[in-house]
């Protein structure tokens, strides 16, 4: 009977093309607006590294002001240089990397390429294997290079194309920060979304353009890029005094394959903080935390409040569109009263008619969903033009979102059709048969 009902639904839509078009348009508008915001929220809250998100942990310790919590009773979201280097030196995790953002001027050896500014990530060699960063050429630097503060560098594909014309530049020399670096690797395309490893400096910003060993921060006295927070002034003047102050500007991630590893690492953190307390630091109660990737995204509220408000507003708009659809369906099914009466007379049960009209409603919903997805594409283009380049990767419909859009259209149109369909099935057939 389903194919029969489907055929009847197509006929019914053709019979009232204007009314049907209005219903499809109402659903399409609702789906278009809600799918635009759902897509943005979905991509904002997507798991950027699903294969490892449960074993990668962001490290937090509470080294903050004894009189004021860092932020609404929460603990600091970054580490001091002291903690970053101490925890790295302890080497308690399977893989680990402290990191920070910096940047400087790259001076290409090719005189035709002008010097330009580039962002850089200071990290340990484990960064690349921990976060499954793909290499086009070469590889990461090793632990020895970390300890020796070797002047090695990993380039992104874009920088390699810009400076070396895209050829394998491993072994070449690149001048940055006024210093020569030896290229050891070139990354393939890599842009985790959100940029989970450092959400403090723009969760949806592009990844840094070059990567260099962490200790070069101190060696080359590289500047802080991104958020730096302090609760007391550095003791002394100069770069090194600031570096060793209680200011936080560093992130740290560890890879802990099992829950047991996690528990042990947390014990280690607690012991470390206790030791520091003995040295007169860490005046606040012990509050250390390990958050896996998704917990960290949630903790840092990566999905922006205004995006969530937009989502709720668009869902309200969908509701208004569905209320309009209910009215239009009532009008449409009232116009079919004679046919419904006839079908009842010749043997259709209420259930038969309910299913028939639900199929019709679902077909209208599906058509609305298809047009709604086209409108969502337009909406996402609008968001791109409104918010600029940084939402480029957020404003795109993938297969999952297309499926969600169609299912949402189907479910919401069926929900909207329940009352009109129920009314249609309860039309008294006798009155319709006589009055025709």
């Amino acid at each position: 009977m389903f194919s029969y009902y489907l055929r009847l639904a197509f006929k019914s839509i053709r019979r009232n093309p204007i009314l049907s078009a209005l219903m499809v348009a109402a659903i399409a508008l609702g789906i278009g607006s809600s799918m635009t915001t759902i897509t943005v929220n979905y991509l904002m809250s997507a798991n950027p590294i699903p294969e490892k998100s449960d074993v990668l942990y962001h490290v937090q310790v509470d080294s903050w002001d004894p009189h004021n919590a860092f932020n609404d009773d929460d603990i600091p979201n970054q580490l001091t240089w002291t903690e970053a280097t101490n925890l790295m030196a302890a080497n308690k995790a399977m893989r680990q990397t402290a990191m920070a953002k910096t940047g400087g001027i790259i001076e290409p050896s090719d005189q035709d390429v002008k010097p330009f500014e580039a962002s850089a990530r200071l990290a340990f060699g484990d960064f690349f294997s921990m976060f499954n960063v793909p290499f086009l050429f070469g590889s990461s630097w090793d632990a020895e290079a970390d300890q020796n503060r070797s002047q090695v560098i990993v380039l992104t594909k874009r920088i390699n194309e810009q400076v070396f014309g895209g050829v394998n530049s491993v072994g070449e020399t690149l001048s940055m920060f006024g210093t020569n670096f030896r290229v050891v690797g070139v990354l393939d395309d890599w842009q985790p979304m959100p940029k989970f490893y450092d959400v403090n400096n723009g969760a949806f910003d592009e990844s840094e353009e070059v990567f260099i060993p962490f200790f070069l921060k101190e060696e080359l006295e590289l500047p802080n890029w991104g958020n730096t927070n302090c609760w007391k002034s550095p003791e002394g003047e100069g770069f090194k005094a600031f570096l060793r102050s209680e200011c936080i500007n560093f992130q740290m991630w560890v890879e802990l394959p099992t829950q047991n590893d996690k528990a042990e690492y947390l014990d280690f953190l607690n012991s470390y903080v206790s030791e520091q307390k003995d040295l007169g630091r860490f005046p606040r109660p012990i509050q250390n935390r390990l958050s896996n990737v998704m917990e960290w995204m949630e903790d840092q509220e990566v999905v922006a409040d205004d995006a969530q408000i937009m989502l709720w507003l668009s869902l309200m708009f969908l509701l208004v569109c569905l209320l309009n659809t209910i009215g239009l369906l009532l009008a449409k099914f009232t116009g079919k009263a004679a046919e419904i009466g006839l079908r009842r007379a010749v043997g259709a049960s209420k259930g038969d008619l309910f299913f028939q009209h639900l199929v019709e409603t679902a077909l209208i919903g599906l058509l609305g969903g298809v047009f709604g997805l086209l409108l969502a594409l337009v909406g996402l283009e609008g968001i791109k033009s409104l918010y600029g380049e940084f939402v480029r990767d957020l404003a795109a419909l993938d297969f999952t979102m297309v499926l969600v859009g169609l299912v949402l259209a189907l479910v919401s149109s069926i929900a909207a059709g329940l009352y009109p369909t129920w009314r249609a099935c309860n039309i008294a057939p006798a009155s319709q048969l006589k009055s025709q």
Partner: protein
Amino acid sequence: MLKMTEIKKVFRTDLVETHALRDFNLHVDEGDFVAVTGPSGSGKTTFLNIAGLLETFEGGSYQLDGEDVSHLNDKQRSQMRNEKIGFIFQSFNLIPDLDLFDNVDVPLRYRGFNAPERRKRIEQSLDLVGLANRMKHLPSQLSGGQQQRVAIARALAGEPRFLLADEPTGNLDSKMANSVMSLLQDINDRGTTIVMVTHDQELARQAKRNIYVRDGKVSELHEVSELPDAVTA
């Protein structure tokens, strides 16, 4: 075949109660052809709707084909309508955007026949009413008489034992009315029981029995052969 005993039907609004049927008694045998006449508002159509299980009743009993219908649920009533009853209406009640084939197909769909069986029945029914060659026409492409023939084909396609006709010739001129009446007589001759509501005395005379309904009751019941030529019901 059809046995109504002391049937009551009251229509209620906030202000008024209308007794459409009061202690309505009727017994129709298998193979009978009964014409129901009476003034407007006498309860003829209400009787027909109750007989066709399109309306419920409040008192008395109704047995159709030996089965008490008062306790049937919606699905059972629908099934009984589909299998045992055919309807013919004054306004034909064809679905305008379905061709003749699909219009006749409607009751068969709810019967659950497979496609070849449906096709066979549709072709036979349309052939019986002389419209087999116009299967793909829409109702709007037919005359009123032809449309009523399609409605009859639709009613017969499921081979019901009981045909209910409500003013089947009411929208037709006399020539077409006679043609439709002749078709109904043929159908009755083949064994289908027919109950027909009509205002047309001449048509009523062509049935086997006449009943006259007044104020929701059967007031007269006659074999047509007993009636004088000039008086029917």
